[in-house]
Each structure stands twice: as C-alpha cells, then as structure tokens.
C-alpha cells in the first residue's frame, strides 16, 4: 500500500527517498538549486528522530557526514557545483577510508559560481574525477520524481553495500520541477542495512580485512572496537603503510569493487529500442526531452528509441555497447559539452556513428533542439 501521494518538487523527492532509506544525519550548507533539500530536511529529519546540522561550509559538511557515518549512521549532504568542488577532498577521503555516504549534487550552470538558477549537466566528469588519484565512484541520476525517490534509496543501498560514497547527480530542472509522487509504503522498496562485524568485544577487529565474499563488515566508531581510519594508504588494521604490495592491493580493491561490477550496478531504462534505427542516449532532465521526441516521432513512423541511463558511474560500457550495436545513428543528449558523449564513443563499436545533441547556455534542451541536430545527422539539412 502506498503511504501517500504528493505533488512535489524533485528536491522533496530526494528528502522523501532519504527518509525512506533511514537517513539519520544530514550536514550541509544550502545552495541553489538544492536548497529545498536542506530546508525540508531541517524540519522533517528531527521529527523523524535524526540530526540536522547547518555547517559553516561544504568542506565541513562532508567531513561531518563522514564522521557520522563512521559511528554507524546513515548520512547525507546536498549541494550544487560550487559546493561540490569544495567537497572533493573529503570525497576522496570517503573513497579511501571506504565510508558509506550519499552526496547529492543538483547541478547548475558552471564553472565557478556560474549561473545559479540555470540548468546544466556539466558536473558529470567532476563526479567521476573531481577528487584526485585513481579511484572508482558510483553516480546515479534520474529524470522524474518516482525515479528520484528510487535512486535516492538506491544511493543509500549501494553506499552501504559497497562502503563507498555515492553521488546523486540531479539538475536544476529535475530538482525544481513539480509532479505527482507516490511514496511507497514500508517494505515496498528494499532498504539495505549496514553489514556490521560479528567480531565480539575484546577480540581484535580488522576494519579493512575482507570476508571471503570481498565485503568489509563495519564496527561503529567509538563503540566496542578500537581501530584507525586514515586517508593514507593503509593495511588491514587501518594503519598507514608505504608497502608497495599493500598500496597495489588497496588500489585494486578500491577500483575493482565497483568497476568490475559496472554491469551489476547499471540502472537504465529503454524505450522503443527493439527496432530503433536511431538511438538516443540520455539521462537526467534531458532524457525527458529525448523521450518526448521519441514518442512524437514514433507516432509518425520513425524508428527511433531511447536508452535512459540512471547509473552514470561506473559507466555501463557493456550495456551501452550492446544498445549501440547495429544502429544507424546514435545521438547522445546532454546539457554539457559532451561529457558522456565521449564515454559512449569509447564504448561503441562504431564511434563514428555517435553524435551529440547538447545545450550549454543555461536553457533547458527541448525536443526541438534535438530534432534540429537529428536533421543534420540524417543528412536532411537544417
């Protein structure tokens, strides 16, 4: 039984999803166009028994989230591009120390403070490579409120399952757009709880010693076990190490645990793809315009389909390769200078058939914008 149906913004769907997933702790610094997440949580999270802190800045916000998570809480922060830039150092720490947490970035125009109220999807590569060093990350996105809710729950589930920060990469249009949201009842959507160690009190606990299945059970920091947490390369006790074998093994573990599961982590939806000669690939709010075009052109007999990606990182290259196979033309639709376009080209067997339909002027891309590019691609002129 659904709990409730509301007419709400995408940012509120994030709040509803986070509370459904069992959010305990939020620390953040409000910024347009993500502000409503902080605003609504400031009221609702304490009511649900959680803690809300407005921090002095975004650096401190993610650091507080990491600390809270280590003590056993489900923790999250939300921001936009400028704040996301400030979070990159702590994001790398969470990757290295394997601390589950969720970072929401409702994208706006950039670089720098850019255009605060304008839509953009320019942080796709920042989500992947914003923090330094070889690493892997999970980034999810969504184009409608039902999916924003589900991907928020999924972000917490994947963070807890794989002990990793998960980035929920939304955009201004999805964040501020209002539509109907049916909030699922308890038990309707799976919620993953943290895997905790079975090592009893008084026995040595190795925070970074993997079980046979590769997972690392956690112990609440400040609880019954004493252990070290560091951003330095560390051994199974969590103590710093300069041993090349330890460094090699750790880096492989950090990257492989996600990159080797890219297809398992791939969340996507396809529309009219079976016989499509033209395939659109899109994500976030841009995917709404892409689907609009697909439905409009299908009604006129054009063989066109859409692959909508909900997982951006790790990039589901095998899935994308499979979907691109045999198509006459592939058109990546996004609101940046082609950040995912390059990934699709790398994945496709015929990269010369992969084109880009984009906008990066703060204006939401429309089905008409996409059609204009498609006309050129199909050799029908402008």
């Amino acid at each position: 039984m659904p709990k409730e149906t509301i007419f709400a913004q995408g940012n509120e769907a994030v709040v509803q999803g986070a509370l459904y997933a069992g959010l305990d702790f939020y620390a953040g610094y409000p910024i347009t166009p993500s502000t409503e997440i902080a605003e609504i949580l400031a009221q609702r999270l304490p009511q649900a028994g959680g803690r809300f802190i407005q921090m002095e800045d975004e650096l401190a916000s993610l650091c507080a989230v990491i600390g809270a998570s280590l003590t056993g809480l489900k923790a999250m922060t939300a921001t936009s591009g400028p704040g996301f830039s400030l979070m990159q150092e702590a994001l790398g720490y969470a990757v290295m120390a394997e601390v589950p947490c969720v970072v929401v970035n409702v994208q706006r125009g950039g670089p720098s403070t850019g255009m605060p109220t304008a839509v953009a999807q320019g942080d796709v590569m920042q989500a992947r490579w914003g923090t330094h060093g070889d690493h892997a990350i999970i980034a999810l996105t969504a184009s409608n409120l039902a999916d924003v809710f589900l991907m928020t729950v999924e972000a917490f589930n994947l963070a807890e399952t794989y002990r990793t920060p998960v980035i929920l990469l939304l955009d201004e249009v999805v964040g501020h757009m209002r539509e109907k949201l049916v909030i699922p009842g308890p038990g309707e959507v799976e919620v993953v709880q943290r895997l905790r160690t079975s090592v009893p009190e008084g026995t040595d606990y190795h925070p970074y010693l993997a079980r046979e299945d590769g997972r690392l059970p956690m112990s609440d920091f400040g609880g019954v076990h004493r252990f070290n947490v560091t951003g330095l390369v560390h051994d199974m006790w969590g103590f710093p190490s300069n041993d090349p074998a330890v460094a090699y093994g750790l880096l492989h573990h950090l990257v492989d645990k996600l990159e080797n599961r890219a297809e398992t982590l791939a969340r996507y939806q396809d529309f009219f793809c079976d016989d499509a000669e033209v395939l659109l690939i899109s994500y976030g709010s841009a995917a709404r315009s892409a689907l609009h075009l697909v439905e409009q052109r299908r009604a006129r007999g054009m063989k066109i389909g859409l692959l909508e990606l909900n997982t951006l990182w790790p990039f589901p290259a095998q899935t994308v390769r499979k979907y691109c196979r045999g198509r006459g033309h592939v058109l990546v639709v996004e609101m940046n200078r082609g950040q995912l376009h390059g990934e699709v080209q790398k994945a496709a067997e015929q990269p010369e058939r992969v084109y880009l339909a984009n906008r990066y002027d703060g204006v939401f891309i429309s089905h008409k914008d996409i059609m204009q590019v498609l006309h050129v691609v199909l050799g029908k002129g402008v």
Partner: protein
Amino acid sequence: METTRIVFSGSGGQGVITAAIILGEAAALHEGLNAVQTQSYGPEARGGATRADVVISQHPIRYPKVISPHVLVCLTQEAYNKYSGIGRPGGLLIIDSQLVTPAKKSDARQVALPMYQAVMEAIGNPVVFNICMLGALVGLTSLVKPESLWRAVQSKIPPAFLEINQRALELGGELASSVR
C-alpha cells in the same frame, strides 16, 4: 483530456508560481490527471517578469516546460509585452484589464477581466489576486472542477485566509461567466 499547456506570467509577489502549483496539484491529486509544473529561472526570465508553466494531460508528460501555450495569463504590462507573442492561434490569452493595456494583435483569443479591481473592491486585499485569476481561468476553460481547485487551495493556504480565498475564487468564476 488531451494535453493542455498553461503559462502564468506577472511580477514577483503576485503569486503566479503559487497559482501554477495549485492548478497542477488540483489536476494531479484531485482529478487523476498528470501534471507537471516548472518555473522559469533561466535567462529568458530576466527582468521583473515571473513565469510559471503547467502542463496537464491524461498522457504521461515528458518535456516539462511550455512551448506555445494553450492558455496564457499576463498579469502585468511587462509580462504581456514579453510573453503575449508566444500564444498560439486558437488559444486563450487572459489579461487583467486594469493592469494590462493590450498593445498588439494576438493570435490567441484575448479576454480582459477586471480581476484586480474586483478583488480590491470586494475583498480589499491584493493577496488573493492570484486565486481570483485561477477562479476566472477555470471558469473560462473548465480545465479542472472548481471543487478540485478549492481542495488544492485549502492544502496551500493558512486556515485564517481561507474565507477570502473562497470569495476570490467565486469572484473569478463570476467574472468568467460574464464574458462567456
């Protein structure tokens, strides 16, 4: 019901965004329709003009913004000057007859209603101007049932103000029936 696209425009503080949210909620929660509401913050909204879009349909709504609205509402001269050109032939353009002087010919059917004046004379509080406008819009278009609109208003307005909002809705309906 096929797809209807509505644009509300005016200046900040007139409640055009609230009006758009109420209409969207009435359609989505009380009429079993799909509705998507967005507001324009982009470069096209620079200056004093505020714009809010609503799309209502029995079908799933993909593109969430409005290109060529079926119904366009302009509550200030500036909004009229800026947006009256986007109306479509056969569409409806609702303006406030006191606040807007129609300057050019429109492709849409233009309806000028003294909404602001009626609100000030009958209620004396401009805060319900937007609700009067919604009453007129629904009276002219039957987009949603008046009961659905009233339920949505009740969920958004503090109880102390419900009475003047109800009066404003009725006032809008009366103005609409005078030109039908």
